[in-house]
């Protein structure tokens, strides 16, 4: 049985824009899956429907046997703890310190009083420091998040997501706000930690090279529909041309 199972997921926004037209997708344990598509193809919506940051109209999402789409609010909050999310714009809380940002990954499980007084439990603290060391930001933990460079900020984002002890990482265009060299480093790092912690990863990209280089499987998304879903080594250039038209160079640039 796959770890994550998405069935017939549909979503249209109040503006009338149809983002997802019934998408099926599955991710096995420890698998790295890339969602490839242009902007507006529904990648971000798909990822956000998995943890219901965006509420899907119909269809189902099941994670490790738990039907996410059937949960009430309280149950959903609990379920979200097993899905770490990493964002294109990092979405750190700028005025908190790096360590506080990392620790905020445990907000789902700590008590309200501890959250209010910033008195996170010792074991969380130790784990946070370990993750900071792993992603290479241990020297910066006292700094405010907005004092870091883009690459460092995304590392904080990765540590925060891992802080949740997730079963799967949902990653939305992790390198789009970074320059290519830093972006590649961040991708490498994510892949490494995903392997080390045995976490599956579902990431969206618009860059074909990133998708082919870092994934086990590529899912092509266009206009809210899945147009191909194949193992990375067997994806044919024609399939990618379907998404980007003939102008592949533009897509890479």
């Amino acid at each position, binding site marked *: 049985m796959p770890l994550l199972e998405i069935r017939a997921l549909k979503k249209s926004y109040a503006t009338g824009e149809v983002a997802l037209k019934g998408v099926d997708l599955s991710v096995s344990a420890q698998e790295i899956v890339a969602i490839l598509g242009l902007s507006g193809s529904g990648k971000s919506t798909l990822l956000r429907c998995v943890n219901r940051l965006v509420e899907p109209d119909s269809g189902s999402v099941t994670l490790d046997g738990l039907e996410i789409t059937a949960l009430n609010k309280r149950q959903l909050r609990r379920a979200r703890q097993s899905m770490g999310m990493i964002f294109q714009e990092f979405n750190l809380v700028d005025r908190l310190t790096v360590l506080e940002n990392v620790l905020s990954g445990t907000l789902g499980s700590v008590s309200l009083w501890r959250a209010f007084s910033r008195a996170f439990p010792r074991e969380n603290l130790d784990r946070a420091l*370990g993750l900071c060391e792993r992603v290479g930001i241990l020297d910066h933990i006292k700094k405010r998040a907005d004092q870091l460079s883009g690459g460092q900020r995304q590392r904080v984002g990765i540590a925060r997501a891992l802080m949740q002890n997730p079963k799967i990482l949902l990653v939305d265009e992790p390198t789009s706000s970074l320059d290519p060299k830093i972006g590649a480093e961040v991708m490498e790092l994510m892949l490494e930690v995903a392997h080390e912690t045995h976490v599956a990863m579902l990431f969206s990209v618009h860059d074909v090279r990133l998708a082919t280089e870092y994934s086990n499987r590529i899912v092509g998304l266009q206009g809210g529909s899945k147009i191909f879903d194949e193992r990375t080594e067997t994806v044919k250039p024609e399939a990618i041309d379907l998404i980007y038209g003939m102008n592949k160079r533009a897509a890479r640039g």
Partner: protein
Amino acid sequence: MGDGITAVRQAYLHDRRVGRFVKFAALLSLFAFGFWSIDVLQIPIDRVLGMFGRVGNMVWQRLLPPDLVYATSASVIYAVLETIEMSLLGSFIGTLITLPLAWFAAWNLTPDRVFLYPMARLIIVVSRSLPSLMAAMLLVAVFGFGPFAGMLALVVGTIGFAGKLMAEQAETINMGPVDAVRATGAGKLKVFIYGIFPQLKPSWYGIVIYNWDARLRSSTILGFVGAGGIGLHLRERISVLEYHGAMGIIVIIIVLVVASEAMSHFLRKRYY
């Protein structure tokens, strides 16, 4: 766990302990300060406890409903008009005085940095720090009861309020065009009119309108010390314990202030 982590962890835990202690100490001092304040201000604790009931009673029984018949009577309407007049005339005359003062009080433009600049600054700062109600009471002592004293208090208010804002705006202008006009051999007043004022026009007009809005607010209470306007009626109603009538005046004042704020907002948006 590496040595690096252990060190960082120790440092963090130490900081956290210190931080907690500081927060606790700050909270404790705030409480001590509170008790000391209660002592200094001689605040009767029993009255604090019964406060909500008494204020609630005051508002619901004695103030509400407002006596709108009285509040729209001829004498009140006349006082409202007088209030508006005071605010307009006070703002107008005040602005005329403020224009040169703001020019003198802007460091980059001032024609004389040794004498005029500090004098203009001093006048603006003192006018700004002088509460208008106190100024009005002093002016009443000099010029007698009536809207003239109130208007003069509003002139002082304008100098303090608009003077500071206008000088601040003047200090942000681009000096290029100013130097260009100066290069033609124009005198200081001409440099101001042709090089400086055109740049400042939009922001200064905005400040003038904003100032009028603020002056109208303060003109509503100047009557308390006999300096003209609607405030006199409010004091009268309260001194004869006619609270419904007083509430009627308060409603009129709120309407007046909200209308002026809307108008000032509209004018500033529409033109600048």
